[in-house]
């Protein structure tokens, strides 16, 4: 109810505004937005769909009744570049972590091979552009958590060789060499080894992802890295005070070094009222996830199912406020107002988070383009946000890697 009213009001006001100022009709904007969206590279830097590859019930090539991502819905939503996330529980460390991560990397490659008519595996920005020109979806890999290298820098190289193009320095827990934003500080940011990891990532052309890390880890990484950093799936702390989000100072520092923040759509990370209610009901999304992970004893498919059940149950109880997809736009706009249009992008957290109303899956992505257009964003700026900014950062990382390897 509330959602519909809000939407109506917003579109009415926007339409009126545009009508008066530029005499462009709503339909014309919709058509122009559609055209812009479907001719752009729309790149999402964080999708947990990889976990579903291990379930017999999931088929990436078919339209699934649940979840957020599959090829038909990517096509429908014009999402043509996706980072499949490699993720295991942050408490699994050492050699078992390495092997599990490799199994997931393999699962991504197997799915790309299986659907080679639609997908193509990409390691460079240029490859992503080529894929787009061929009408294919670019599949990339990001490793979500430094614990997966098993405290061995050589395994980072192995991941890089297998196509990983970013690594988040931690997940919910500290790893052996970096502090997480949702754990008790143990290393005062990055350890010396952690700094070596960042340097080696630069050398290998693996983007340093500072989503999930503590503020101190962020600033340490920013100082050490020779290439721009990314926050693969984080939102703005000024709008929703969650430790997983970035403060304005962090966003400014990230942008000053050419990096990019990719907005996360998770309700608890974008809406302050929702986060507070969730904290009251379930002790916060991190604690709830932890509890469920323990109940499922590591079965990731079980985790996402139970999280979904919990969400449905809490939704039904009315304990949680509704969150509209337009909050995503507010976060994008906040970053743009803070540092300009060159440092923000999209990192949905599809299949790994609870989506706001109206952004139920990736087929809804064109709404973001239309909303930005209605806000008066220039076409070229919208293209940057949809994917251009991230590709620029990728190219920068490739350049730094080439330079470091030539030394």
């Amino acid at each position, binding site marked *: 109810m509330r959602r519909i009213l809000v939407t109506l009001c917003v579109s009415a006001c926007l339409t009126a505004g545009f009508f008066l100022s530029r005499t462009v009709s709503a339909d014309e904007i919709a058509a122009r937005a559609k055209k812009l969206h479907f001719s752009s590279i729309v790149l999402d830097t964080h999708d947990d769909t990889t976990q579903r590859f291990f379930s017999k019930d999931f088929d990436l090539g078919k339209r699934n009744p649940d979840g957020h991502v599959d090829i038909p819905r990517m096509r429908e939503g014009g999402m043509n570049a996706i980072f499949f996330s490699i993720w295991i529980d942050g408490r699994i460390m050492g*050699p*078992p972590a*390495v*092997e599990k991560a*490799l*199994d997931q*990397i*393999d699962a991504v*490659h197997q799915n790309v091979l299986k659907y080679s008519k639609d997908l193509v595996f990409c390691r460079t920005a240029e490859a992503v552009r080529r894929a787009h020109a061929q009408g294919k979806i670019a599949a990339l890999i990001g490793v979500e958590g430094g614990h997966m290298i*098993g405290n*061995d820098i*050589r*395994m980072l*190289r*192995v991941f890089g*060789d*297998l196509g990983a193009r970013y690594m988040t320095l931690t997940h919910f827990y500290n790893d052996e060499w970096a502090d997480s934003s949702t754990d008790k500080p143990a290393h005062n940011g990055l350890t010396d080894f952690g700094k070596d990891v960042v340097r080696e990532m630069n050398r290998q052309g693996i983007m340093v992802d500072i989503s999930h890390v503590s503020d101190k880890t962020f600033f340490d990484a920013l100082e050490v890295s020779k290439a721009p950093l990314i926050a693969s799936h984080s939102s703005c702390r000024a709008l929703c005070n969650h430790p997983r989000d970035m403060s304005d100072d962090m966003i400014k520092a990230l942008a000053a070094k050419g990096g990019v923040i990719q907005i996360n759509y998770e309700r608890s990370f974008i809406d302050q009222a929702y986060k507070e209610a969730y904290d009251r009901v379930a002790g916060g999304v991190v604690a709830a996830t932890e509890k469920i992970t323990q109940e499922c004893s590591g079965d990731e498919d079980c985790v996402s199912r139970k999280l979904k059940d919990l969400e449905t149950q809490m939704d039904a109880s009315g304990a949680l406020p509704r969150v509209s997809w337009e909050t995503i736009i507010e976060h994008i706009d906040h970053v743009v107002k803070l540092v300009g249009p060159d440092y923000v992008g999209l990192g949905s957290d599809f299949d790994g988070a609870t989506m706001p109303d109206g952004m139920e899956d990736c087929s809804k992505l064109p709404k973001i383009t239309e909303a930005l257009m209605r806000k008066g964003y220039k076409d070229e700026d919208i293209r940057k946000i949809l994917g251009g900014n991230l590709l620029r950062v990728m190219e920068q990382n490739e350049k730094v890697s080439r330079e470091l*390897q030539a030394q």
Partner: protein
Amino acid sequence: MSRILRTTALGVSACCFLAVAVKPDAISARAKKLHFSSIVVDTHDDTTQRFLDGKFDLGARHTDGSIDIPRMREGGLHAIFFSIWIPSKITGQEAVNRALAQIAAVREQVRAHPQDLVLATTAAEVRAAHKQGRIAALMGVEGGHMINSDLDVLRHFASLGVRYMTLTHSGNDEWADSSTDTPAHHGLTDFGKQVVREMNRLGIIVDISHVSDKTFNDALEVSNAPMMASHSSCRVLCDAPRNLTDQMMKDLAAKGGVIQINYHVGFLSQEFRNAEKANPEINKAIGQEVQKRCGGDEACQLLEGDRLTREYVERGELPRVDWKKIVEHVDHAVKVAGINHVGLGSDFDGANMPYGMEDASKLPKITDALLTKGYSEDDVKKILGENTLRVMAEVERVSRERSKQPQK
């Protein structure tokens, strides 16, 4: 250490000068031309162990060991399989991780020397590298224990570019018997057979060096693609269980495979082997001294083993084996298995090299000797690398066919 090697080389010169009145390294113009225009492939080099200290520079000429880029260039070695190896006794996840670390180390060397090296995973890529004047770097995993009985790990190795796997090393693994261990599985277990089939599907060449005769026969029966003995010699000339019998060579060839001759003196020379057997104390003493000098450093162990063996030879306590033994084994294998089924698998940096074949720079001597023996240029090319490339291409073809079939 360089001093010892140089003194030795002078000794060789003097001896050969007297004996045949030709400088030992004098290669005919025809041999030179043939050798340096052929694709010379070596399917087994343990140089990888040297990469692990993080300091070894493959681009510099070294006074020890057998392989580096300058000496590969000098010897016209155009394609090299770097061996991924850890001792058989290391198993489980530690084995997997150490193997991955070695794969990473090989790939780092390739990245560090982009002018000279390029990673190759297919016969076509080896040919392309040769055309560009670059050395093709390939990888083989020497021992099935490194997959930790997990076909996923095998697939990870394939994704990282591994193109052969030796089913065992010196000890049995969980699913195959080695030629130098007490039989435990009566050849290949059912899982072992599954491993072979999956290797066919992935395009990883089945390597039967090191395995027991029964494992060899089992693998031959199961494999849908030709197999390779990446570094084995002829048992009829030297009765080491690591070598192949004439029958094994015939069977390998009948299925299109190839035997890559190993240059290790203990596999080439019956005389040397007899002396080792007659004085087991010598090997024991060498082993103890190696342990003392190297501890657990495997690269050091391999190089020091070679050095110490040579000291025993110099003192006359072990027989001196000449590089021409390699040519005898090649020639025997050609007579038994046919010209299309023999190649080179030196075991450089992992074994005791015969006199005159101290390193990769000496390889043109093999071409020269084969021409002198009356081999045609085409036949020499086959031995130098074309046979191996044919097996690779065939394994790739089988892999393409089998990947099309649905997975069980």
